[in-house]
């Protein structure tokens, strides 16, 4: 599970911005949410899905 370390870090960064933005919305947090948090979580999800795809193809399940 070494690979989910990067994804976990990206998710932590994304949530560390998203949750304060949802509770205390302001222009600066909105900027961080739009330009930092969303890409971080998007990349994390994409990396996990890529790992799943690689895992499934290596086992001839896909």
């Amino acid at each position, binding site marked *: *599970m*070494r690979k*989910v*370390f990067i*994804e*976990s870090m990206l*998710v*932590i960064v*994304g*949530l560390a911005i*998203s*949750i304060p*933005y*949802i*509770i205390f*919305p*302001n*222009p*600066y947090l*909105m*900027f961080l*949410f*739009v*330009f930092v*948090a*969303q890409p971080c*979580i*998007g990349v*994390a*999800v994409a990396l*996990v*899905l890529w790992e799943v795809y690689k895992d499934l193809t290596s086992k001839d399940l896909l």
Partner: protein
Amino acid sequence: MEIILDVLAIFVLIVEVILLYQLRANRHELSAKVRSMVLFGIIVFPLLALLLGNYHVFVSSKESTTCQSCHVMSPMANDMMFDSHSQTLASRHYQNGWIAEHECYSCHADYGFQGTMKAKLDGYRHLMRYVTKTYTEPIRYRGEFNSMNCYGCHQGSRTFEAVDEHAPVVENLLGDDPTISCLNCHGRAHPEPSKRTPGSKEYKWLSDPKVKEVVNAQEVKDYINTLAASAEQSK
């Protein structure tokens, strides 16, 4: 709705902390439990947080107070909400209670979820320039205001239809290449740039945030609504 969002956000945070902690503790074996923790901890709950955040970006941002939270919008907000002598369209609409809610968004609807992609990109550009402070006052609207946003509310109203001059305007607006703007006849929507220029006589008052007075503006609005209701009853 705001409270539900806040509670959901805190719930997501708590679950996420537990999941990531458990994931770290069980990271050596790729069991079904770990796989489900990855599914929920890295895909489902973060996406839920994004959904909640985007709700704020597209829905809560319709509130006029959200627009007002950027310092650069203070001249427009103060003129609209607090200047009782102002004759701008925004001020007349707000202070006469012609728009019940989402006063900014009602005219600038293009920024919303159903608006054009260009408007959304403009919104992101405005946000970027505000946060990085790469703007100069007075700010100016780069594009052209879509008069169909006015027509959306005024269409079919008796006072609008009664004015014969509106017929060719509507025809023009509904055409492929509209050349007329409502502002051509009805005046400025917001204070002129000279008043919004730092150093001008009006700038200090216009740019001074008046957040606390929002409550009073609501009271004025409620009072106007009460008057309208009593006028209806007396008919």
